């Protein structure tokens, strides 16, 4: 289904956010049905090409979502899951919330791209709650999206502000979904997760060996 190479590659500089988004976009198979989470993943839509024929789902009840609406196109009845006004592409369809999440939960979407606080080597995802005492929890569609699509990809910074790896052996933040993430895009590396094995597809501004030294999980270098 995906078009990426499994050959290990490396670049001198860390990826910018736009470069990450461009790589994610390029990896989305032609004709795929995709849900892009709020935040960094939303940026992926800017790098999808018309030729790819990707259809965007927004869980508040629409397939065939178009770009963000501006000016006269803004319609308060037409918003995305981030509550931003968007547009409608030809061939779109609307449905109610139960049908929309049935579409997600039933495994009909090909790819869901999400942000994350942490991902474990076995693909467990934490992205909904810091678990901080006194924090008010809010989950939205995070748990549904995490486990619903055929493939769940994460975009995140690899390290916290204090330099700790967000790719971990076991989550310290509250779980969003277990074993659901199959790929992670970060500024420093792209990882493939399968059956507990973490394969590094590419590194950016860091060598594989340096990376292996900084991360708490065992890494395999792509062939």
């Amino acid at each position: 289904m995906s078009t990426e190479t499994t050959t290990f590659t490396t670049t001198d500089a860390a990826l910018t956010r736009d470069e990450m988004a461009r790589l994610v976009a390029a990896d989305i198979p032609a004709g795929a049905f995709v849900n892009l989470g709020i935040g960094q993943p939303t940026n992926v839509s800017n790098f999808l090409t018309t030729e790819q024929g990707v259809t965007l789902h927004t869980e508040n009840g629409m397939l065939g979502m178009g770009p963000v609406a501006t000016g006269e196109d803004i319609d308060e009845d037409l918003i995305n899951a981030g509550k931003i006004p968007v547009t409608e592409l030809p061939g779109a369809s609307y449905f109610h919330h139960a049908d929309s999440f049935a579409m997600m939960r039933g495994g009909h979407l090909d790819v869901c791209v999400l942000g994350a606080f942490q991902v474990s080597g076995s693909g467990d995802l934490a992205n909904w709650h810091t678990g901080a005492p006194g924090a008010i929890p809010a989950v939205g569609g995070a748990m549904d999206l995490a486990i619903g699509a055929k493939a769940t990809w994460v975009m995140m910074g690899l390290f916290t502000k204090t330099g700790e790896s967000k790719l971990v052996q076991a989550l310290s933040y509250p779980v969003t979904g277990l074993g659901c993430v199959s790929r992670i895009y970060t500024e420093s590396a792209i990882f493939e997760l399968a059956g507990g094995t973490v394969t590094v597809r590419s590194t950016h501004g860091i060598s594989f060996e340096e990376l292996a030294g900084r991360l708490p999980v065992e890494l395999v270098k792509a062939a």
Partner: protein
Amino acid sequence: MAPRIAATAAEAVANIHDGATVMIGGFGNAGQPMELIDALMDCGATNLTVVNNNAGQADAGLALLIKERRVKKVICSFPRQSDSWHFDTAYRAGELELELVPQGNLAERIRAAGAGIGGFFTPTGYGTMLAEGKETRVIDGKGYVLETPINADFALIKALRADELGNLVYRKTARNFGPIMATAAKQSIVQVSEIVSTGSLDPENVITPGIFVDTLVTIGGNN
């Protein structure tokens, strides 16, 4: 029974009683029945349980109900937002109970109530904090949580247009929770931009059949 046509929003919500469970449609501003919520505020009913995707924003609608401590419990997926200060204050003060439900489970539980389903096994939330204390089961190697229906006494819904029998059509992503909430409440109170004569809606395109609608009120035009 053809729905009652209320002359005003106040008349539409007049029979909402203290202690009622009230579903409120909408996702962001799309589909939010703001005039009905304002009328609920004015009618004085208190000790309410509110089912909504959020828990109020800024100083309007549901947020005001919460500010005035008219709500004892909120069942929602995403209470905490940048402008959910009234919720935050009431919740931190221990004066508001919160049942946090993943958005797709919320939608499916509302649907289940309308469909006479006693409970269902959903993969969403399995292995997370939100499944704690709930029955779980592994089916064909995949983990599921047993979730129960959410019924309500009243649903406040915004649709685009109704006919005199209460058949409804919605507009774009403003459809969201409306159709399922209409099925789950003992009484559905619906604000529409216009009521058209019976026979004006194409039977193929009716989204909520009139059987689910108890009260209609016309509010302005579609904005």
